[in-house]
Each structure stands twice: as structure tokens, then as C-alpha cells.
């Protein structure tokens, strides 16, 4: 996932992605407070998802919408 995200951000033809993402972030979160809230919210969702996976499914990975891990 980290590789995919880095590729999307720094890979070929990624200038538009960076430009658009920065523009969108600037528009959606004009101030540092709103930006901090969005980052905190994002982290909370991520942590909640991980916690739920560990507690409810005993650490099992949910591959949905796929049926299982890739075959490599």
C-alpha cells in the first residue's frame, strides 16, 4: 500500500495528482484547525478500522471485495 501511494504521488504523470490534491486540500481545509481536524479524523477512522479488525476478527485481514490475498 505504501508503495502504491508513493507511486501515485511521485510516479509518472503525477503532477496533476499533486496539484489537484493540494488545491483540494487548500479549498476544503483553508485553516490549520480544519486541517488538523481532518487529519485527526482520518487517523481515527484508520485506527478504528485496525482496532476493530484486531478485536473482532482476531487480526484477520478483510480482503473484501476480493475473495482472498493475491496469489503471488
Amino acid at each position, binding site marked *: 500500500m505504501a508503495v502504491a501511494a508513493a507511486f*501515485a504521488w511521485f510516479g509518472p504523470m503525477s503532477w496533476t495528482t499533486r496539484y489537484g490534491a493540494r488545491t483540494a*486540500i487548500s479549498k476544503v481545509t483553508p485553516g490549520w484547525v480544519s486541517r488538523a481536524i481532518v487529519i485527526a479524523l482520518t487517523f481515527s477512522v484508520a485506527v478504528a478500522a485496525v482496532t476493530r479488525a484486531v478485536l473482532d476478527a482476531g487480526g484477520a485481514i478483510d480482503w473484501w471485495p476480493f475473495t482472498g490475498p493475491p496469489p503471488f
Partner: protein
Amino acid sequence: MDTESIGTPGAPAEPGSSGPRRSPTSGAEPGGLPPGTEIDGYTIVSRLGSGAMGTVYRATDGGGQEVALKLLHSHVDADTSALGRERLRREAVALQKLDHPAVAAILDVELEGADAFIVTQIAEGISLEDEIAERGPLDADDLLALAEQLAEALEAVHAAGVVHRDMKPSNVLVTDDGPVLIDFGIAHGLEDARMTSTGLVMGTPGYLDPQLLSGAEPGTATDWWGWAAMLAYAATGRPPFGVRPLDAVLARARSGDADLAGLGARTHGALAAALNPEPRRRLGPAQVVRALRTAATEGDPAVEDGGISRGQVAAAAGAFAAGAAVTQVVASDGGTRPMVVGPPSDGAGDGTYADPAAYSEGGDRAAYGQPEAAAGDPAGEGASQWQGYERPRPARRPWAVLGIGVALVAFAGSAPGVAFALLAVLVILARWVGLMTNSLHARREARGSRRGTEPGSVGCRPSSSCVRCSAPRPGCSSVPARGCCSWSAAGGCSPPGGWSSCPIPRRPRGRSGERTPTGSSRSCSASRWPSRRRSRGSAR
């Protein structure tokens, strides 16, 4: 019209003379009236040119004297909304008020008969447009002579209460006795009511004061702006704001983005300041002439190196002569169609200059012909005059981006499928926003900035930089911020720090091409500009 002749006095015609009469509708013929046609005692000799309102003929009056006869186009006469006869009447009234060697004297006018026409003196000459197209830009001496003589003529016109409104190279004749202003077809009395429909403006793109495009009333400043644009054309050999597309020409004029590449520092500075879109900050004609005189007598240090080929000059002038400089209700460079103008900018609608005292009379700025920030300009905001569109640069937001990325990676630890789908959605969304935003800003860059809508995005902040540009440089104002020194011959600012604090450069327009020092395209050192004070060697 390309070339026109207006000159020696002739006796007034005697109405009702015998001879073949023209049909009142024959003025619509593409080739004009055939030689020998008689109109109210005047016999057509040849066609001299044609404009938006009428065709000008060389004609002879009853006494055999040659005159210039401007016959109203029949289709303009038939179109009541065009107010052709009223415009012709105004032209006649304007000319009757004028008694100056640089303005053709009116001899006769006919407004009541089947044919509406106006008769003026005729003199041999070539239009300034053709003069520059054929022989290249003027050197410093000739430019000074042109500036002085035209300024004198224009002052006389204004003193008579008339605004010419269509100052452009094709409306100036170069004669043995100096320049002659012609075509007062859309001239306007200072006290006259406006004839052009509200929301429309009459003039020639590239030589039309941008204030008129903003809805301001015609005034003396209108003519002085055209005068400065004409000098820029004479100095560079290129239309100062290009020829097409029309939107780009008007956007450049509105942003003061004149093509003055290759001019010496003093000439460049003076003309750039005189073509400032904001009337209050423009350099007045006296200051421009003073700067040009300094350039002619003390030299004009080059702004930048480089040269423009004669071919490029000829091509630009040729394209200009091909039809872009036709008086019209501002529209395309071909046909005539109305264009809605925007609201006037604050404090500029009176079309007058600020008190000349607003300009610095001392120091480097005066020496280089640079205006001070206008009086009352808050906190030196005059530096933020660059009206070209400067695209905003979004902040990098590294922590926000990193935070979202880390959250995605963490999420992928428990639900990789959903996390990848989320990443794909976010990337697509970001690319879409990026493409749309980029497209929006590209359009705005092409059209120029709408005045005053984005004060924070144009120019350099005066508090952060000394922003006098050696040329209309991307992101920089063309006028120094308060407290900044004038630029040096080597370019840049003093104290240093000018360029580095400017915002990101705009895309180059690819209009300048190679550049040349002032006057380098001239091959002879003798003045070619006629002067009333010095006799010219031979008539052209």
C-alpha cells in the same frame, strides 16, 4: 484606411455645377466611385482609402483645386442606427474648431443632400503605419520629433474641446511638413453626448484606451494613451499589444503588457509608464517627451541584449497593415460586431490624468521617466499593478498529505481491498481537480486578469520586494514599489531582492521573439522624420 492624403487648400465648391451625377447608391461599389464622377460640384479623381464610416477620394473642386472628399458609405447612411450623418456632422464640427498645421482644415460639408460628405484639404503623405512597415522603426531622434509634433497637435485638438478617439498609426500622415492627424470620424466633443450604444465602445483594438473597455467615457486620456501606443509602434515596428486574437490584444492592453522589447531603458520606461492601464498612474505626455529627449540626447542604455530580425518586424507590421488596425466597434480583427464592456474601475472613469505633481520630479525615477505611485495610493500598493493573471499556487500541505497517506497504509493493514479502492478514488479525484483547476487558470492566463478581482494574486507585494522590471516580466509590476529605487541599465533592482521574491512566473507568450537595441535596425544616421523646424531633404 491604409494611406490617405490631405493637404493644400482649395476653393470651396460651387454647388449645382453641371456634369454627370453619381447614383446615391453607387458608393457601395467595392471599387468606389469611378474617376470623373461628379458629386455636388466635386469631381472624383481617385480613391485614397476607406474606413468604417466612409471612403476618401482625391477630388477636384470647381476651381480645379485638389481636395480630399470623404463620402459616407451608403450602407452606413441607410442604417439609421449607425448615425452616419450625425457622426459626419461631428467630424465637421470638430474640424471647424481646429486651426493647426497638423490637422487638415475643413473646406466644405454636405449633410442634407442625397450624398453626405465632408471635404478637407489634401496633402501628399504616407501613413505612419506604412512608413514604419516599409522603413522600419524610428530611431531616438525621429521618435522624439514624432512625439513632440504629435503631442503638439493633440494638445491643439484638445484645446479646441475635441477628442480624436482613434489615435493609431494609420490615422497619422507623414508629410513634408510633419505629421498630420486625419480621420476624425469618431471624434468626440468633450461636452458631447455619447453616440455609441451603452455597453459598446468604438475604437481600434491595440490602440484603444483600456479604460474605455471598462466603461469609462472618452476623454483626453483616451487620446494620450493612443498616442503612447502609436509611439511604441513607431519605436519597435510592432503593434504594442499584438494583432490577434482580439481577446489577447485587449487583455494585454488591460494589463499594460506592451511589447516594448528591444527598446532602450529610458524609452522603454517612459512608454511602459504611459501605457499603464490605470490613468492615475500614467506618465503624462510632457514627461514622456522629456524622457525621449533625454534618450535622444544622452543615450538610451539597452535593457537587454538580443535582436529582432527585419523579417520579423516586416511580418508584424505587415500583419498589422493587413487589416487588424481598422476602426470598429471593438470586436474581431475582421468584421465589426458589438462587444459588451465591463464596469469602470474605481476612480478612473473621468479619463483625466492625475495632477502631474503626483509624478516624481527628482532622482532616478524622473531621470528614467518612471512615475511615483499615485497620490493617495495606500501604503505603496501601486506596486501591485501587474494586471496579467497570476495563477495561485496551492500550498504544499505536506503534513496533511502525509497524514492521509499514513492513515491509508494503516487502514490497508486490516482492509487492503477497501484501502486500495479508496486510494484509487482519491487519486482520480485529485487528478480531476488538478485538470479542472489547471484548465481554469490556463484560460485566465490567456485572457488576463479581470481588474481588481484578485488583488492578492497579482504583482509583487511592495513590502517584500523591489519590483521594477526591466521588461513586463512575469509576476512583476511595471512600476517600482514605494521606497524602491529605479532599475539600472543592467536590469534588476536596487536595493537587490527584486526577482527572487516575485511569485511563480507566468507562461511565456512567445510574442517577443528576438530583441534588438533601440535604433539598431536603422542603416542611416540622418533623420528621416520631417520637422517643421528643420527642412527635409526630399519628399518621399
